[in-house]
């Protein structure tokens, strides 16, 4: 809120430069977002007013805060600054003849409505008034409209003026809208109202949306001779809902929805009528009408010294408590434990004892508090193992050359659809843009985009990973580790050995992750729409698929801004499933072998379509338990090997925990292995 310092100074004689005032008020809860000099040492201070303080959205409201911050008194110009007893200011009766009849049909939605009729001569307002409005960022319109805005700025009470001649039946009815009722608002928009919206109507039709905006048909114009001033208190929730539904936010609606002061409308009306005469714009005709069936009484709260100490960690002297709260217009009655405090009705934010303590802390100064440290009264609970896991995986992946990426949790529908089963996406109801339309079913679309970004910037060799959540309608929110690898598998070196990434590189990563998580996993062939056929595999533990990896299907790479010609290998592991399959943290060390091992190499000819895993399974089944390791060390196809066959060389290692194996032991084991390979795979030893 923009406030002219000289106007503020009429209400409180605050010393110092605009910068000094700004600095002081910033640490009292009113940050100053800008200082705009306007000549003669005067300036406009742009205060940031938090949503809980509608009462401070006025010159007098801010003056009250400044006065308390500086230990000053408010001047008489702020006259109405402190709560007048609502009763004394009340008009005796509006029995005297009035030119208007006010009918309050919905006291729930409009607890108070004050109206007054005045004869006016519409003209521009005086220069001083226009200058003050302009300093606050409000455009001067005419003396009548300007008065309403001036009172809004000075006291914080939104007002409105109707042209009496436009009100059918000389009547103001505060009622809810009729179904389908239409109204053209002051901004020229035609609005269709709904029955929960409150309107200000004449005998026949709606003339304003209560607390939000006036209607074009009842607007004060150059031809207006008689007006009705409105100064009311509307239900905050009702105004908020109406404003939201109409998509219409105004100075008035902003104040009403945060909570205005029900005891301000009459004071504001008196002020508006006085201004009317002061600037020669007209004079009141007849009495002020005040419809206020259920007068709002100020709340009373208990404030205990012990609670102040308990919450702030420091005792505040009684005199300080009294000075601060009375400065802010609270009334205090001492009792044994502290005080009974009457809360001014404008302070909608103060409903509990802690709210009073906040006022004390605020004006005592948070910089005055000591710095202490909370004591531990119980042992810290066990750590969440997930965090340690994330750190471990981060170490594993970075050590394997991968850079950690962080990508958004939502992606475009087409990017997501590739990685999800039909209908298993989670759309966002109110997305910002098409690029953020659904929650990601996988981190891979985000990683693809990051790979593409890097490819466009002269990076050829890219390894990225991300640890994060993915979402599906069927599975909800699940944690995953994903990675993408393109370019060099083995980096360039002057001695040679450079090659591009291939399937067995990404397989190594998948197995390394499984190893890190102590998952006993096997790799099986797999089909996945987004992976290249024949170059896709699943990581399986205990019959459960915990991850998928392989070469990204070239068409998918192409859709994500990558070249179809360059292979991208990817992996995604479900961390929740892997965690369940893992051996956990408990570990018992095995004794080291006491006897030497014996190795034997064999080379066999088998069909090229035979999986290495099948050979291994056959060997494991045929060999005695002394077989501890099988390693394929060569696979050859070509010259000297019949068509459709491969030569596979394996190294078998035997070891007994009980004794040194003899040649005869190993030979009989090898005979059994070869017999089985011949029988099951027609293998021929070379």
């Amino acid at each position: 809120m923009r406030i002219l310092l000289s106007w503020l100074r009429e209400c409180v004689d605050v010393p110092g430069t605009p910068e000094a005032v700004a600095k002081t008020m910033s640490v009292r809860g009113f940050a100053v977002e800008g200082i705009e000099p306007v000549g003669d040492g005067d300036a406009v201070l742009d205060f940031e007013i938090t949503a809980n303080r509608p009462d401070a959205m006025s010159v007098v409201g801010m003056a009250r805060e400044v006065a308390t911050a500086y230990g000053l008194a408010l001047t008489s110009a702020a006259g109405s600054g402190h709560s007048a007893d609502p009763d004394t200011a009340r008009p005796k009766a509006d029995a005297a003849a009035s030119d208007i009849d006010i009918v309050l049909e919905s006291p729930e939605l409009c607890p108070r409505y004050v109206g007054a009729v005045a004869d006016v001569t519409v003209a521009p307002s005086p220069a001083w008034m226009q200058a003050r409005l302009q300093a606050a960022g409000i455009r001067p319109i005419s003396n009548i409209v300007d008065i309403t805005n001036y009172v809004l700025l000075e006291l914080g009470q939104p007002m409105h003026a109707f042209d009496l001649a436009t009100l059918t039946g000389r009547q103001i009815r505060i009622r809810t809208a009729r179904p389908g009722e239409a109204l053209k608002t002051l901004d020229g928009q035609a609005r269709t109202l709904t029955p929960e919206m409150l309107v200000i109507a004449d005998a026949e039709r709606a003339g304003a949306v209560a607390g939000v905006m006036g209607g074009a048909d009842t607007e004060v114009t150059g031809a207006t001779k008689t007006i009705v001033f409105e100064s009311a208190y509307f239900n905050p929730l009702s105004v908020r809902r109406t404003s939201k539904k109409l998509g219409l936010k105004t100075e008035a609606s902003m104040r009403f929805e945060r909570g205005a002061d029900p005891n301000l409308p009459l004071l504001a009306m008196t002020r508006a009528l006085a201004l009317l005469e002061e600037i020669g714009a007209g004079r009141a005709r007849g009495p002020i009408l005040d419809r206020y069936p259920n007068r709002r009484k100020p709340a009373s709260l208990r404030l205990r010294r012990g609670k102040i100490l308990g919450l702030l960690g420091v005792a505040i002297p009684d005199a300080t408590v009294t000075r601060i709260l009375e400065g802010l217009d609270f009334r205090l009655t001492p009792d044994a434990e502290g005080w009974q405090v009457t809360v001014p009705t404008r302070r909608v934010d103060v409903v509990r004892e802690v709210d009073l303590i906040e006022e004390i802390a605020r004006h005592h100064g948070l910089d005055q508090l000591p710095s202490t440290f909370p004591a531990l009264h119980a042992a810290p609970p066990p750590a969440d193992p997930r965090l340690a896991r994330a750190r471990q995986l981060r170490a594993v992946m970075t050590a394997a050359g991968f850079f950690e990426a962080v990508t958004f949790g939502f992606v475009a529908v087409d990017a997501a659809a590739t990685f999800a089963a039909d209908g298993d996406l989670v759309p966002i109801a109110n997305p910002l843009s098409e690029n953020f339309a659904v929650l990601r079913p996988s981190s891979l679309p985000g990683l693809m985009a990051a790979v593409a970004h890097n490819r466009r910037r002269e990076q050829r060799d890219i390894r990225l990973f991300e640890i994060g959540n993915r979402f599906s309608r069927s599975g909800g929110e699940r944690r995953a580790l994903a990675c993408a690898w393109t370019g060099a598998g083995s980096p360039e070196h002057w001695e040679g050995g450079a090659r591009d990434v291939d399937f067995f590189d990404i397989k190594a990563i998948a197995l390394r992750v499984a190893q890190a998580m102590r998952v006993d996993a096997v790799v099986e062939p797999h089909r996945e729409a987004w992976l290249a056929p024949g170059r896709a595999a699943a990581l399986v533990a205990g019959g459960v698929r915990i991850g998928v990896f392989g070469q990204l299907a070239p068409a998918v790479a192409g859709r994500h801004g990558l070249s179809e010609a360059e292979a991208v290998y990817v992996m995604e592991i479900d961390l929740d499933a892997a965690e369940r399959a893992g051996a956990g943290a408990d570990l018992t060390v095995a004794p080291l072998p006491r006897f030497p091992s014996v190795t034997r190499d064999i080379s066999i000819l088998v069909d090229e379509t035979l999986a290495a895993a099948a050979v291994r399974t056959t060997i494991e089944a045929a060999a005695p338990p002394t077989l501890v390791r099988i390693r394929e060390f060569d696979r050859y196809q070509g010259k000297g090997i019949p068509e459709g066959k491969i030569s596979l060389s394996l190294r078998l290692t035997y070891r007994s925990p009980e004794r040194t194996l003899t040649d005869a032991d190993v030979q009989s084991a090898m005979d059994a292995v070869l017999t089985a390979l011949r029988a099951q795979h027609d293998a021929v030893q070379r």
Partner: protein
Amino acid sequence: MPDPAIDRSIIETLRANFRARLSSAASDRDLKALTDEFLSRKSGSVTALLKHLGSLPADAKREFGQLVNTLKGDIETALADRRAALDDTRAPAGAVDVTLPARELPMGRMHPLMRVRQQVEDIFTRMGYEILEGPEVEEDYYNFEALNMPPDHPARDMQDTLYLDAPIIGGTWGAHRGALPEAQVRAATLLRTHTSAMQIRYMKTFKPPVRILVPGRVYRRDNLDLTHTPMFQQFEALVVGEGITLADLKGTLEALVHELFGADAKVRLRPSFFPYTEPSAEVDISCRACGGSGCGVCKHTGWLEILGSGMVHPAVFEAVGYDPEKVTGFAFGTGIERMAMLKYGVDDIRLFYENDIRFLEQFPL
């Protein structure tokens, strides 16, 4: 040639000549040439002198012969020494050129946001906090209502929320402490706008005292620009127990800031408003660009806002079944991006989400 019996200076000239040549001999080739020049059987200059000895009278022959032989011996010794010195500098068999490039050992980097997050986690671990992650999709009750933001509360406008078009199950949390199924997200309708939602889940599940730190991703309906992203990382601390005060909050914040930004960073608490804390305070640190004297970065205030904080609102305690007459607590939270931008001098938040390797590799291992 002159009579050597008379001119002994020829020996000294030869010696001086040899010394001068030896001092510039730096290779095997130079040494070979030197050896040939002075000692070669056919044309060596010392050899030539020896050949002349026969033509001398016996006296002169003995005397001059001794001198020439001494010269020859000196030259041979000097050449051998120099050869030995050269041998010492010679590369041994199998030597490599150690100045050739190394084989590349690929090494990735942790993301800078995770770096800051881990640093924060470590600081709080040392202070006895329990570090927890919560679900990213949430129920309205936990994200807003129980945090003293009932439907239609104006403060909801402060955080523009992204909603799901139909509810889903959220991620699990607290399994290691036996958090019950009731503590989990069963029908999430929105993306959490802050990690504060975990305050409620935790307090509804566990009794005080509470001392937790919740890092994680949060979502807002904000467009991408220099300082905003629709998803960002937060961390949130919550401490609840008997006798927890605003002064404790202040001390804790100072400890955090000093760890993250150095002991000379000044901390300022400024009263503010959050629906779920009372009193509430924004936390500023002295501007890192100007040291507090005022500059463009801090809008000439000398301060940079880094955190929101406050004492837990009694309405929040009531919502989770804690007695606000018995316990008090503080909470604070902030965006990790903001911390990282300040720490590393990053002026565009989008850099964190482009994952450009040239950016990522600037951070240490």
